[in-house]
């Protein structure tokens, strides 16, 4: 069974690599720009993606009554004495620690959006056709970055929602106790 799964895994991996190679070989320059935009913004957003992902998993485990990864949360929260904090407070501190990265990411993304919009609206266009199709390389970078922006927004919103749920449930518990 394990051998079979391993064979299947490597087969799928090979197929994915093969598909990627073929896709890159037959891609237009705009599509390659899109891929590069995705990869580049993924590098910028790596901290946010893993941070919000870990935070969402932490809050979900805490809400479900399972044992959350407290050690990682204490390392990420960036407060002087994290071991004294409750789970909800720890999640809130972790969320706050990610805030500067979120602002930096959205600032770069909005800058790119402005550049693309300027290219669409301000630059005199040689023909209607090129305006409709509008396949500039920077626009490809923008669309690749948009995937990452959606990922960051979704993970951030989910992590915020779960942390808020955790906080309100903790508050509810405290109110019920006190």
């Amino acid at each position, binding site marked *: 069974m394990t051998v079979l799964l391993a064979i299947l895994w490597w087969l799928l991996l090979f197929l994915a690599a093969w598909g990627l190679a073929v896709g890159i070989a037959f891609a237009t320059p*705009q599509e390659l720009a899109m891929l590069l935009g995705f990869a580049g913004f993924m590098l910028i957003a790596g901290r946010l993606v893993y941070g919000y992902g870990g935070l969402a998993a932490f809050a979900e485990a805490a809400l479900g009554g399972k044992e959350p990864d407290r050690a990682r949360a204490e390392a990420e929260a960036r407060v002087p004495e994290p071991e004294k904090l409750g789970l909800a407070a720890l999640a809130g501190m972790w969320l706050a620690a990610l805030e500067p990265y979120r602002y930096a990411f959205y600032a770069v993304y909005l800058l790119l959006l402005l550049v693309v919009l300027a290219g669409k609206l301000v630059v005199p266009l040689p023909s209607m056709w090129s305006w*409709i199709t509008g396949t500039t390389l920077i626009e490809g970078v923008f669309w690749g970055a948009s*995937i990452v922006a*959606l990922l960051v*927004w979704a993970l951030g919103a989910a992590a915020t*929602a779960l942390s808020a*749920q955790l906080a*309100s449930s903790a508050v509810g518990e405290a109110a019920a106790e006190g």
Partner: protein
Amino acid sequence: MMKQYRSGNVQAVVIWTLVIALLLGFAIGSFSAASRARAAVADAEALAAGIAPSPVVTSARYDKANEALVLRVFNPGLVPLRLIDQSLVFKPGAASKQEAYALAAVPLGVDLAPLSVVEVKLDLKPKSEKLEVGDVLAASISYVHPYSKDFYTLTHVFSVTKEAAAGKEQKEPKQPQMNKPKQEKGGK
């Protein structure tokens, strides 16, 4: 009692993420398809620019005063052509007193730019009789294009009808035509 967070709804986040992902996927797919369409159009244009099509005679006219056959020649392609010389074959009709003659290789030297029309004047044999109804002229123009050292020939058959003899412009039909010989009439 602390105020509850309004954003503490994971289901809403999931649904909104799916909706935005759908729109984003549509936009990205459109962008990708547009870039492919653009590349295909560029390829087709490059191909069309390299193929030299034949020039087309759009209309012909007999210029009675100058004793000339005037052809309007259109270059439908994206390659410039040069019309080198002309030759005429004359087949006299019943009304003509002339004998048949061929007139070959009179230099022309007309440049025909892409997608443009020129008027080519083919001088008929000097001191010959006027064209009569029933005469047939086969006007050949040889031309060259920059992608080949060969000479190509375009032959236009001009039948002198009553209107043509009066000098009226004889337009070529715009419908597609295969230049098949006409079917024999009668039979049984």
